[in-house]
């Protein structure tokens, strides 16, 4: 790892640059807020020279719902539900972060059964999120069919979630002290006997259809290059940073729940291009499968939720909890005055930092490269805007 002073004095690191927002003769194009490649309401103002990109200027705020402000008027049980709407593809993991923070502040001992269930849910969510990313990224590249293949597997997973949580997208399943209720009685069977074998039998299709495709490889190899130093400077995390060789998996660095009991590898690539980001996510799916396989048949008996008070009051102070979502590091920072609601809350969302490097990695490339880079950054816009 680099030391911070070494990084700042190195020639490789980013230097502050000041450029005019727009010059009068620039040829600008608005990608978004309604555009097929942005998967939401992201607005990019791109400056072009012919087909070559001179500058990308993300313009945020179209889906800002002031979640942080809303959380300040919600109790420590209620604010979890709002966070499902941030990164809606990893809603379990968002909820997990909030629940962990409250448990850390109140020093609640979470039953082991709940910890197992939470980690399984997290990894299922990660698989679902990566599957959706895979389909959507292939669609950005112009291949429509992978989207349907990804959704075929994801649909089974969503049904499993629906059985247990009653929801397909905004789960709201994790609560301070454990999970809301026991998983559905068919949960273990469906995950271990239906979903995992299905996914493992279909993974080779993904490799044949997209990974091995020569057109796809030409589109992503060497495109959107993010170096090790830049990944750190921009605060990238998750698969985006790991593709540049940064060792940043929160599950390994600061393990929570039963992550320190399971064997898994932190997937790291060193190339830093779109292909590396792609490979990291594809291999993470396999790692998640392995984690679930280690846990799913060993869920201990016991309570699914620790006994907590009806009204939660966090002690006065500042609390921070980080987890690894499908997109990177999600940090929850709470300032408590000792009351039933947070005084101030701040989410450090992975998408925001990952988006910030977009201008840097696409400068001088073609519009097609912008779409490829944006696809492999795996942006979820409500996560960026909150």
């Amino acid at each position, binding site marked *: 790892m680099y030391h911070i002073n070494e990084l700042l004095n190195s020639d490789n690191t980013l230097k502050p640059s000041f450029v005019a927002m727009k010059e009068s003769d620039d040829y600008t194009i608005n990608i978004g807020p309604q555009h097929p490649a942005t998967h939401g309401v992201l607005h990019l103002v791109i400056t072009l020279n012919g087909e070559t990109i001179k500058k990308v200027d993300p313009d945020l705020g179209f889906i800002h719902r002031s979640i942080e402000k809303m959380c300040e008027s919600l109790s420590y049980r209620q604010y979890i539900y709002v966070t499902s709407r941030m990164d809606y593809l990893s809603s379990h993991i968002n909820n997990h972060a909030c629940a962990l923070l409250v448990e850390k502040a109140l020093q609640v001992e979470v039953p082991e059964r709940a910890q197992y269930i939470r980690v399984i849910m997290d990894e299922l969510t990660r698989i679902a999120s990566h599957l959706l990313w895979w389909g959507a990224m292939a669609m950005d590249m*112009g291949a*429509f*069919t992978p989207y*349907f293949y990804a959704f075929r597997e994801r649909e089974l997973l969503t049904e499993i979630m629906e059985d247990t949580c009653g929801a397909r997208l905004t789960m709201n399943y994790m609560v301070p002290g454990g999970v809301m209720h026991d998983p559905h009685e068919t949960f273990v069977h469906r995950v271990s006997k239906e979903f995992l074998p299905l996914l493992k039998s279909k993974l080779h299709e993904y490799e044949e259809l997209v990974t091995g495709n020569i*057109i796809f490889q*030409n*589109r992503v190899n060497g495109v959107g290059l993010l170096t090790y130093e830049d990944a750190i400077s921009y605060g990238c995390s998750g698969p985006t940073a790991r593709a540049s060789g940064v060792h940043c998996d929160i599950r390994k660095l600061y393990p929570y729940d039963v992550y320190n009991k399971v064997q898994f590898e932190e997937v790291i690539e060193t190339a830093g291009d779109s292909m590396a980001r792609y490979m990291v996510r594809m291999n993470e799916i396999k790692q998640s499968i392995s984690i679930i396989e280690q846990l799913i048949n060993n869920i201990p008996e016991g309570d699914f939720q620790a006994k907590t008070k009806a009204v939660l009051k966090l002690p006065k102070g500042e609390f921070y909890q980080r987890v690894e979502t499908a997109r990177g590091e999600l940090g929850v920072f709470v300032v408590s005055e000792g009351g039933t609601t947070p005084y101030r809350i701040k989410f450090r969302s992975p998408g925001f930092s990952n988006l910030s490097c977009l201008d840097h990695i696409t400068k001088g490339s*073609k*519009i097609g490269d912008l779409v490829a880079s944006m696809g492999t950054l795996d942006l979820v816009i409500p996560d960026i805007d909150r």
Partner: protein
Amino acid sequence: MISFEHITKWLQAWLNAHMSPILVLAVETVLIVILAIALFAVLGLVLVIMERRVAAFMQIRMGPNRVGPWGLLQSTADTVKLIMKESIVPTHADKFLFNLAPFIVMIAAMLILAPVNFAQRFHIWDLNIGILFITSISSISVIGILMGGWASSNKYSLLGAMRSGAQIVSYELSAGLSILTIIVLCGSLKVSDIIASQETGWWIFKGHIPAIVAFVIYLIAVTAETNRAPFDLAEAESELTAGFHSEYSGMRFALFFLAEYINIFIVCAVGATLFLGGWMPFHIGHLQGFNHVMDYIPSSIWFFGKTFFLIFVIMWFRWTFPRLRIDQLLNLEWKYLLPISMVNLLVMTVVAIYHLHF
């Protein structure tokens, strides 16, 4: 055997018996125009529904299945909707060019139908430079695309038109060269002569490896020429929303849409004519018995069967491959396809001079 030839001959005789020669010509012209427009519309509808069913088949889903039997009327319903929709002209658009563009694309597509032989001796105009006519008229459609993209006064449209111009002009070279390799073999530009020369077997089987190479290059080049995925950069929806026809709506959009499908039909018909023998049944050399059995299948079925097979292949491309980037697209043409097809043409010339083909 029922053949289109009998119908046309009977009609010609009947008209000649009842009218003066000039009137006969006028009536026949009107009939052909009506038939061509009807074919244009029907082909468009059939190809759209076919594309949607093929896409659904590839993507493990149902596809249109509600309107009419097996969803066959879906594209008709869509067309009715498009006719009823308001056709908006943007405020800053060049109105004359904006309105003209879809018609240029459509007229170019319709003109190319003329020399195509749909069945044995069933064609509109079998002129002696038929293939040259097809290649030259098909170049016109790029003008319509450029015009539409420029006149829309939309940056997406302009970029799409710019890409489309570069792409179609480049890929016409290798498409033309691969057509030339077959012309070298049969020594005639007349479509009926080309088909007649394949009486002992189709050129893709008779022409050795150069014919197969030319066929593959032709398929790639025409996929690019018709702006189909993986070469659909002109309307790359994840980059340029809809490319050159972003601003078109209603029937003007439908004309672009129809012209795209008619163009696919035409390039596949030309490909089938050149490489797969057009309406010529599957013949093996001089095996009289086998050839005679094959002749019992009507020539129109042979022609449409081959053409729709090629259309299916092109649709298959679209639903399998990701899209190329613009520089990769031009590299592919200028660095690979063009040199290969030039060498291929030379080899084919040697083959033709020494009669090395079957």
